């Protein structure tokens, strides 16, 4: 209790001076607000603000946790841009997921949502059925997909074989490992689909009726009624999708570990990461390998700072365009 009180005093200065004319009850309310916010403010400082600044500091050092950080100026960045053997492979793989996986997921989930809007009988059943895969823990869904698509005994290639087609190696083929993860991404599209479904159901019906009376065909109704109404949700899903793709980690890491048949513990993680042939080595995995397999924490921080710069661009876009993320309404 005592610590909370003292922290509150300090946090109070954040909000500027309390005007002397402020009524006592208002001042007490301000104090209450600060007490309520104290844990969250400490959390934001300790687990967000401080590490953000510290990452920039570490990025100028050589640091392995055993000895103190040693200042080496821009050398990490120099190495990153001119010498790192895999950073551009990793960046290209992440970019691939941003450019291919995100739009495909958006289009398929929008398509399924559009179908579900029209399915009026048993709408709850359909909604649940298509949402359910999104609930499966990601590790479980990746393990399941690597099994389904495994070239030796997997059902997918068994079915292809029955149809007279020689099945490919999927997760073990450098050219097909990423597309295989796209199939997984489509399977778990339910989270985006639910948002689109709600947006489509929110489009005012009378606008469709007015358009129909004006002689608009189905395409025109979609173009001039549906699209303008759901554009904020499309932007939201698109930009959050990009931010999620920039940190694409679990699916790729687990697919590599499982498909390669090697454990992902300790040093092995570095050896397995990206299997097959670095095709699944994403940027965040490369941060993990350099930082926590090789314990080059300074260099990993430089990689993280570069990721921050890229993510910040999309974040700014999101903050400007999505109403839910702007605070004005709290004032109403």
């Amino acid at each position, binding site marked *: 209790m005592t610590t909370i009180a003292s922290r509150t005093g300090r946090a109070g200065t954040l909000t500027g001076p309390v005007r002397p004319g402020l009524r006592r009850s208002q001042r007490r309310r301000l104090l209450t607000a600060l007490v*309520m916010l104290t844990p969250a403010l400490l*959390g934001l400082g300790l687990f967000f603000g401080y590490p953000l600044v510290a990452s920039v500091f570490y990025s100028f050092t050589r640091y392995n946790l055993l000895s103190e950080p040693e200042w080496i100026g821009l050398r990490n960045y120099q190495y990153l841009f001119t010498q790192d053997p895999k950073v551009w492979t990793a960046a290209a793989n992440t970019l691939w997921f941003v450019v291919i996986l995100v739009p495909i997921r958006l289009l398929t989930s929008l398509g399924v949502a559009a179908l579900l809007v029209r399915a009026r009988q048993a709408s709850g059943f359909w909604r649940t059925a298509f949402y359910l895969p999104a609930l*499966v823990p990601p590790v479980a869904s990746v393990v*399941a997909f690597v099994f389904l698509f495994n070239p030796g005994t997997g059902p997918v290639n068994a079915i292809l074989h029955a149809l007279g087609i020689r099945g490919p190696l999927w997760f073990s083929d450098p050219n097909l490992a990423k597309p295989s993860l796209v199939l997984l991404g489509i399977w778990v599209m339910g989270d985006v689909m*639910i948002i689109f479904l709600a947006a489509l*159901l929110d489009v005012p019906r009378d606008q469709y009726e007015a358009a129909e009376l004006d002689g608009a065909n189905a395409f025109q109704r979609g173009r001039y009624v549906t699209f303008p109404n759901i554009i904020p949700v499309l932007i939201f899903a698109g930009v959050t999708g990009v931010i999620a793709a920039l940190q694409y980690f679990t699916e790729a890491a687990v697919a590599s570990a499982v498909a390669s048949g090697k454990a992902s513990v300790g040093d092995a993680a570095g050896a397995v990461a990206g299997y097959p042939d670095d095709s699944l080595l994403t940027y965040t995995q490369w941060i993990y390998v350099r930082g926590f397999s090789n314990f080059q924490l300074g260099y990993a921080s430089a990689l993280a700072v570069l990721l921050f710069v890229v993510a910040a661009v999309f974040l700014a876009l999101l903050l400007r365009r999505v109403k*839910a993320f702007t605070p004005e309404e709290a004032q109403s």
Partner: protein
Amino acid sequence: MTTVVPRMMGTASATRFRRPSGRVVGWVAEHTLLAVLLVLFVAPIVFVLLTSLMTVNQTLTASIWPNPFTAQNYLDAFAKVPLARWFANSALYAVLATLFMLASSIPAAYALARLRFRGANLIFLAVVVAMLLPPQITAVPIYVMWAKLGFTGTLLPLILPNLLGDAFSIFLLRQFFLTIPREYSDAARMDGASEWGVLTRVILPMARPGIAAAGLFMFFNSWNDYYGPLLYTSENEQWWPVSYGLATFRGSHSTNWGLTMAITVLVMVPVVLIFFFAQRVFVEGITLSGVKG
């Protein structure tokens, strides 16, 4: 949503009245497409289930139907793999993270939604940015912090931070609190209730669905977490949760797909069960996090 559906049905019957044959063809086409998609979406789960019921010898062939059916893989899952401990670790992680998050984030979300003070907008912006930025950006300094405290190798670095609020949960709860009409809290204040009184006696009962949704999201995210346990517990098998154990165990039993699929099913079951009991709350939560506001 409930107000939209009846109006939609009205429109549909009006249109159907005008062009009956086109409607029927459309209905059949749409439902055929839905049914085909449904088969494709359900098939992975079915194959996983079937394989989990096969004998070891059968999983080495490309057969699809178990012959004979056996529950041996499920018994082995507990006998050959420390699955019970993984489950206990996951439950500990998810339950504590959720409780801690609720205790710290509900008051913060209330203050951001309902109390006017200078700096509120800035704090809200910080919450949103913290929620959206990739966690890998801040991973190194946070890891160093826990390493210096000697907490690496345990689940504590994943559980304890929730005592100090979780950005996504604060955001989600705030969105819910904003949907509660101001009049209720104003009336309670008129009756002399303090802000804590308003929060506990007015807002909490009315925001129960929102709190349930935030809690469920936190529980699921912790249960599903792979990156966190990889970072902090990979060296110490004793603290592995199921999600990490499942990904890692595969390596050491690389050919036994039946056992792997049995564990995969067991990892899915709790999450799916919880979802079926709390489906409405959950769907509302997802919608609110993305659309409303």
